[in-house]
């Protein structure tokens, strides 16, 4: 670990206790959504479109409804009508199609039956007639003059002049320095312009989407599901059904990976509608095939970037034209790409134009630092090329141009305290940086940036009769947040972390909490926990003052004890347990809550160093050493910060080398299984050495920055730069699969261009 700034000495924050949910998870006792079964439960199956783009002309459910065991069949007609312009129109018509299907796998109906086999048989008997429409499957097709327009209502937002005709461009984002770009590039001694393409990739969570819904005769329903935000499941389901939120209670199950892909709903509204119709609980579990075909991948892109640099390595001008596909509906890929592409470096003259484009593939969803890994792929490989061209060390080039406190962001505001330079220096000082390479090996350096967000969080702290505590929050634990909540509470209260039980409360057990996204859980929900604990300490001081017969102002809270500081003789300190034991006599149960809208989320930076070995005959790339630094602000539980960094690297390496959606000419996905969609497994990767840099975020009581996303930003360019240094080949199209690498080596005249 690298500590870059002096910080307070903490007793518990920064330690590595065994996570509270660890035993249950390693022994198989933890209950994920698919583990839940209820008496009288039915099984739900979704009927999905075989076409990438088609108009639904009729749906006949009569045969399916008459089949053995079938208790309910639903279609889009079972949900309230929704029109374009509705705040969640896209979500509503994505969960179940109405008049049109927009991708192969789009849900058109659902069936509930006594057994899964019966439901599958009935789903196959639902007769859907389609008028097949020409499918738009690529960016080029979407932007063609004669392209079929997917959505007749889609008028390009941000167009100047305003759009008068619908198109497949949902949004245009423009940022610029407002300076003379020609003059900017004229200041440059070297100008390079490059194009990149990337393909959609899936988040690849191991646990498929799953839920159980039980709707009672009173019209209220309970949903058990794994998600990144059960309050969002409640509101989205209610919106789609036209219900009040109060009719729905969502109980979070354990979650087996999300990475952004479980920030929306797919099955839950269908399960509720089926359950309401059948009067029985309904369980729905996606197959892996369904997960690939129907749930959100990260966008594919076409990127074109032009950079101007002076001979001393100073970047002076940057022009970016970014196109992101967001699948069948509008999405923010281009916006987020525009907000990240030049964010890490000081560039006086810049112009960015980003398009968000719809095509006939599954609706994109968030995936760790959405859009940023792709802009980093482009920027960081071009920086390496510039370094080579100018004869400047790649690290020195980045240090020369790196943003620091006070530098303006692309959006104009000055950065607060950030740790980019510290991350670069941490890698430069690591033994890996100067370690010798073997034959056919190359080393790549790359950096990455992500914003992080705050949003709303709630927490309740209950002290028990024996002095232990329960901390209830509304943030699903997808990366070890229970442990971080317990550690912050332990630090505040002075209780051992294992005397604190961190609990993820359901929608009726804790205050509203936004989805676990934007690396916000430990930052924002942690702030709510700290707020609740500080209220609790104030209460404990008051109770202790009563017990001591002292004025509350003469009682301090020191290391988990109430300590008398007055002048009326001496009084024994009182522990939490001692105060709890007399709670009934001093005012009743000890409970405190914290609820807030968290301001001041601190940006995160990361710098990665990757060694690869390239088989010159097959093009197979093997990652042989990897070191990653990241600014965590303050690492509450360093093991889980390291885990987030390592997880981001693993996913980024898969994105770089193997992962891609492959469609046939009709828009049918050809590789919807982990056999054909290759994610890295443990044997594919070396130990990933994580360096935690701690430049505290001044807006958080412990200095926390979110750490869940930034780690996936640098791996793609780090791998690409390493491949270049091993082979002499610049590859600008993802994935850098063996075939593509071999083609590049062959085109380059063999190994290292020789």
């Amino acid at each position, binding site marked *: 670990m690298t500590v870059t700034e002096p910080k307070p000495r903490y007793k518990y924050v920064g330690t590595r206790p065994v996570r509270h949910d660890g035993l249950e998870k390693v022994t198989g006792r933890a209950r994920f959504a698919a583990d839940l079964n209820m008496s009288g439960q039915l099984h739900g199956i979704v009927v999905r479109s075989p076409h990438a783009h088609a108009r639904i002309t009729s749906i006949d459910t009569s045969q399916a409804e008459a089949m053995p065991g079938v208790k309910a069949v639903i279609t889009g007609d079972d949900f309230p009508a929704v029109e374009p312009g509705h705040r969640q129109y896209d979500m509503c018509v994505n969960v179940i199609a109405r008049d049109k299907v927009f991708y192969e796998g789009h849900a058109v109906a659902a069936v509930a039956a006594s057994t899964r086999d019966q439901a599958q048989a009935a789903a196959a008997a639902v007769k859907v007639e389609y008028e097949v429409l020409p499918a738009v499957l690529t960016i080029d097709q979407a932007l063609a003059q004669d392209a079929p327009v997917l959505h007749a209502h889609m008028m390009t937002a941000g167009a100047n002049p305003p759009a008068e005709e619908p198109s497949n461009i949902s949004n245009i984002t423009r940022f610029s320095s407002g300076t003379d770009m020609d003059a900017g590039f004229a200041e440059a001694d070297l100008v390079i312009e490059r194009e990149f393409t990337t393909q959609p990739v899936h988040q690849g969570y191991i646990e498929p989407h799953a839920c159980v819904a039980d709707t009672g005769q009173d019209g209220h329903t309970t949903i058990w599901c794994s998600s990144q935000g059960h309050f969002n499941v409640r509101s989205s389901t209610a919106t789609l059904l036209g219900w009040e939120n109060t009719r729905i209670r969502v109980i979070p199950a354990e979650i087996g990976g999300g990475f952004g892909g479980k920030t929306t709903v797919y099955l839950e509204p269908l399960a509720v509608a089926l359950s309401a119709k059948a009067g029985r609980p309904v369980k729905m579990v996606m197959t892996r095939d369904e997960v690939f075909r129907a749930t959100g991948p990260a966008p594919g892109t076409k990127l074109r970037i032009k950079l101007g640099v002076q001979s001393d390595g100073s970047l002076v001008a940057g022009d970016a034209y970014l196109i992101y596909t967001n699948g069948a509906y509008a999405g923010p890929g281009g916006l987020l790409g525009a907000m990240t592409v030049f964010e890490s470096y000081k560039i006086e003259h810049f112009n960015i134009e980003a398009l968000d484009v719809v095509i006939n593939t599954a609706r994109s969803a968030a995936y760790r630092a959405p859009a940023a890994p792709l802009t980093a792929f482009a920027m960081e490989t071009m920086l390496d090329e510039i370094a080579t061209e100018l004869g400047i060390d790649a690290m020195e080039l980045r240090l020369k141009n790196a943003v620091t406190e006070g530098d303006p962001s692309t959006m104009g505001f000055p950065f607060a305290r950030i740790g980019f330079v510290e991350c670069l220096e941490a890698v430069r000082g690591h033994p890996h940086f100067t370690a010798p390479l073997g034959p056919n090996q190359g080393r790549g350096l790359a950096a990455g940036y992500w914003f992080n967000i705050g*949003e709303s969080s709630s927490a309740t702290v209950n002290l028990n009769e024996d002095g232990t505590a329960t901390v209830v929050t509304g943030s699903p634990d997808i990366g070890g947040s229970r442990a971080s909540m317990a550690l912050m509470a332990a630090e505040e209260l002075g209780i051992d972390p294992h005397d604190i039980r961190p609990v993820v409360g359901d929608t009726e057990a804790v205050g509203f909490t936004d989805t676990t996204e934007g690396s916000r859980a430990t930052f924002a929900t942690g702030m709510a926990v700290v707020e609740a604990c500080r209220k609790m300490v104030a209460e404990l001081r008051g109770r202790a003052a009563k017990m001591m017969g002292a004025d509350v102002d003469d009682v301090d809270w020191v290391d988990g004890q109430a300590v008398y500081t007055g002048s009326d003789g001496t009084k024994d300190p009182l522990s939490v347990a001692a105060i709890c034991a007399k709670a009934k006599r001093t005012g009743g149960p000890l409970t405190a809550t914290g609820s807030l809208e968290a301001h001041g989320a601190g940006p995160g930076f990361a710098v990665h160093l990757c060694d690869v070995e390239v088989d010159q005959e097959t093009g197979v790339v093997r990652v042989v050493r990897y070191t990653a630094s990241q600014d965590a602000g303050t690492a509450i539980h360093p093991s889980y910060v390291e885990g987030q960094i390592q997880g981001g690297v693993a996913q980024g390496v898969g994105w770089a080398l193997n992962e891609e959606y492959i469609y046939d000419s009709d828009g049918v996905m050809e590789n919807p299984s982990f056999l054909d969609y290759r994610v890295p497994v443990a044997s594919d990767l070396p130990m990933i050495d994580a360096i935690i840099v701690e430049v505290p975020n001044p807006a958080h009581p412990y200095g926390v920055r979110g750490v869940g996303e930034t780690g996936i930003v640098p791996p793609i360019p780090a791998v690409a730069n390493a491949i270049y240094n091993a082979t002499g080949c610049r590859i600008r199209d993802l994935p850098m699969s063996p075939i593509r690498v071999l083609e590049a080596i062959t085109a380059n005249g063999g190994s290292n261009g020789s």
Partner: protein
Amino acid sequence: MAVRVHLSSNLRGPTGGLAELEAEGATVGALIDDLDRRYPGLGDALRAGVSVVIDGLLIAHPEYEPLADGAQVYFVPQTAGGSSHGWVCCS
């Protein structure tokens, strides 16, 4: 309260490209009202999925945020969950 307003470049249409300007408001909401009076249409743009950075602090939903005299207020695209942009970010 007189404050200094900075607009990210995608929000400068109603101001004719002006990036920085003076305006008044005791809260961000009042400031937006004032900006809309000076530059018709800017209010709608600022109320649709925009965050602010005030004296270094990123605030996602700033309508009632108080402003001190002389504050530096940066309007930037919203990166927060639940915005009109749909999906956002994840860990």
